[in-house]
């Protein structure tokens, strides 16, 4: 008797897929409960406060949606690049460079600039900044074939150090003394909440999700991204300019991360600071992967992930070590990823008389 894993001919249907992922989540919760019991924390009450922190009150939901915006925007960008088989793990750097550009514009605009113009310029600068930072990886990739995985990753560190230098040196706010903050950007450039409650960046996330869906559905650019990503030689055969596809794909990906950075500046902190992101760019990679790169699942998963993040914070307030919440997050991710991948196989038992 042997066990064989055989790849399925067709991808599982959506309900079948959802069922497997739900099983994965169930398994994750069971494992987490075991871990909590071992570390002398009552599993039920820990999970309860985790969920309360994430979605338990209107304030919690607001805060979760606020965090879902940068995670989701980075994830949409990463998913977009993956259409062309480009792996952008530099969303964190592009996020910060977008935030830097947005702050730069926000600090230099004259005070009397009107509100819509100022917001548009601040966010536009973020889009441009993110794209420019991604271009540093995209151009060598397109012209010399330099691996974008390495360059985007390493550009993250350069950008973080650049931000660190700015907020401690030339852009340090004298009023915050030793805190690594820049001065606040002009009031007119601050993005207020929509309908009084939800963060102003949330509509941008919805628009980005819709754009990704439209690009997939039937744009020539989306088609060329897919062909160039799947078979570069076939792209050349089909008259597709592969260099343009690489550059435009990666820059668009960076632009979305840059927009996320600008939204953080304009709608949340109002100023540049080193702790602007707890790793939104890297969470975006996970979210894009968990969602299989599909638009609607990205929205849902980024909200869930943001909830997990917020729930983790509320655990720490309840004197449960931060490491526990990190372990819980990791367990849940591993189980969902495993369930998603295994769903593409079927398990078959083989009986063999002869050996």
């Amino acid at each position: 008797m042997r066990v064989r894993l055989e790849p399925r001919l067709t991808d599982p249907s959506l309900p079948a897929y959802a069922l497997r992922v739900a099983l994965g989540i169930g398994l994750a919760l069971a494992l987490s409960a075991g871990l909590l019991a071992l570390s002398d924390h009552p599993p039920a009450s820990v999970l309860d406060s985790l969920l309360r922190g994430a979605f338990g009150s209107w304030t919690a939901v607001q805060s979760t949606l606020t965090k879902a915006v940068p995670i989701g925007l980075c994830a949409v960008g990463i998913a977009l690049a993956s259409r062309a088989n480009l792996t952008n793990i530099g969303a964190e750097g592009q996020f910060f460079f977008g935030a830097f550009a947005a702050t730069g514009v926000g600090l230099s605009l004259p005070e009397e600039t009107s509100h819509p113009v100022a917001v548009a310029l601040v966010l536009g600068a973020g889009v441009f900044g993110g794209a420019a930072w991604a271009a540093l990886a995209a151009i060598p990739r397109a012209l010399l074939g330099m691996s974008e995985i390495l360059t985007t990753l390493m550009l993250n560190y350069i950008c973080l150090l650049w931000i660190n230098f700015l907020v401690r040196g030339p852009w340090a706010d004298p009023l915050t003394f030793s805190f690594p903050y820049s001065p606040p950007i002009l009031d007119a450039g601050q993005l207020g909440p929509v309908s009084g409650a939800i963060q102003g960046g949330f509509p941008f996330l919805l628009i980005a999700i819709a754009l990704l869906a439209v690009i997939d559905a039937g744009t020539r650019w989306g088609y060329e991204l897919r062909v160039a990503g799947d078979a570069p030689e076939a792209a050349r055969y089909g008259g597709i300019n592969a260099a343009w596809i690489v550059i435009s794909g990666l820059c668009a990906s960076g632009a979305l991360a840059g927009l996320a950075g600008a939204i953080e500046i304009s709608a949340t902190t109002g100023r540049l600071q080193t702790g602007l992101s707890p790793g939104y760019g890297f969470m975006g990679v996970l979210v894009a992967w968990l969602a299989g790169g599909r638009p609607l699942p990205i929205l849902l998963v980024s909200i869930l992930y943001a909830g997990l993040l917020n729930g983790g914070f509320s655990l720490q307030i309840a004197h449960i070590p931060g490491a526990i919440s990190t372990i819980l997050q990791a367990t849940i991710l591993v189980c969902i990823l495993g369930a998603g991948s295994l769903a593409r196989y079927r398990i078959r038992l083989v009986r063999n008389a002869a050996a």
Partner: protein
Amino acid sequence: MNATFPVPPQMNGITAPLCSLVGVTKRFGKIVANDDVTFSVMPGEVVALLGENGAGKSTAMNVLCGLYLPDAGTVEVDERPLVLGSPAASVARGIGMVHQQFKLVLSLTAYENVSLAVDRGRFWQRKRPSGEIERLMAEVGFELDMAKPVWRMSLAERQQLEILRVLAQGARILVLDEPTSVLSPLESERLFMLVRRIIARDRAVILISHKLSEIRQVASRLVVMRGGRVVFEGPASGRTSEEIAGLIVGTRSVCVSPRPSSAKGPDRLTVENLRVKGHSGRDSVRDVSFRVQGGELVAVVGVAGNGQAELLDAIGGQKAPSGGRIVTSDGRKGRRFAFVPAQHLGVALAPGLSIEDNTLLGVHRRRPFSAWMARRDVRRHCRTVQDMFGVAAEPGSPIRRLSGGNLQRIVLGRELVGDPALVVASYPTRGLDIAAAAQIRNALIARAAAGAAVLMASEELEECLTIATRILVMSGGRVVLDRETGQTNLDEIGRFMTAAEAS
């Protein structure tokens, strides 16, 4: 060129079969690829496994090699059951397969490739063949420089090496999947010599091929498959090519339309002093000039590796010429004529995308498509391409699941949409069964008859003499003969093909 082989000694019926497939059934979703397949292979015989593309030959062989686990049925080797679905078990019991696409490590030497398969467990690799491998090479008559890296070997040498490797693993049942599709006639003759020596020591060979003349030369028994079932099993001797073709195709009739008339139109393709560099950096196309007019069907022939493939790749824009000029009647911006490269997946088709996406490749920049490609137009276009040669498959399913014949039909269908005035096709019928090849020949003839210029490369001289209006023979990168088909014959073409390389 037509050396005859002695007919192998008839089996006396007492010998036990070397291996048998018994009632093998394999389904893929709704498709039954193998339906109750049963046949045996005796020691010392060459069994030709015949059938159209998609008849189930490859599935049966993949079951034999342990790559597929059948849904029902057994395989017996030496009258004992084989553990199914395990490549290791199949190799251990003496089953070896030489695939159409060679599975060699290019950067290693010939010996290292053999060693990799035979004594992978050794910590310290030997540098030279052991006595056992040398004995095997002498027994079968391999002529290989075992210290040569594989990337420097010709296709024929690589094939020999593949066979040696499989034999060195202890194979007694050797499966050869279309072994001659990459060989010149002379190299094929050498291969068959090897095959005869291989079976001499109670080994057996299962030969998959579409070339009936070869089958009549070497096979002692035929197994014909159609629609997943074995429809004929019997001795090969005394059967004509027509009879064998009839068995393969069944009741359908296959006929090729008459070649287009010689009425000529305007120049559609002009090639002047073209030079193209090959892999090794040397010119593989040297100073080639010719013209193709509307209404012409020009066939480029030659022994493999004499520049035909590079010439067509350069015309199709897949390879940049190092000198000379290519003029087509179309405009400058992008390719506007039909081009069918020799390799489909990865070049003319993106393997990971759907059939629908693939029918758009290259066409997606022409009307009715714009920056927005409307679903309705995409669907209609896909249906047109599929209907051109009758490919019945879900438009959304991945293209790599199609059989070789259907891939060729999709590429050709897509390229012929919109009635191009120039068609350039590299080996359009390679690896196709009789019916599929006839369908594609007819389509090319029809294009030429409608006034288009058609340029094709082919390795089948009979095919060229039947359908082409003009023949170009290439040798050593030059065009050494350029004749109307009516003014030449097989002997003359053969002479020019094998003429000593000029300069």
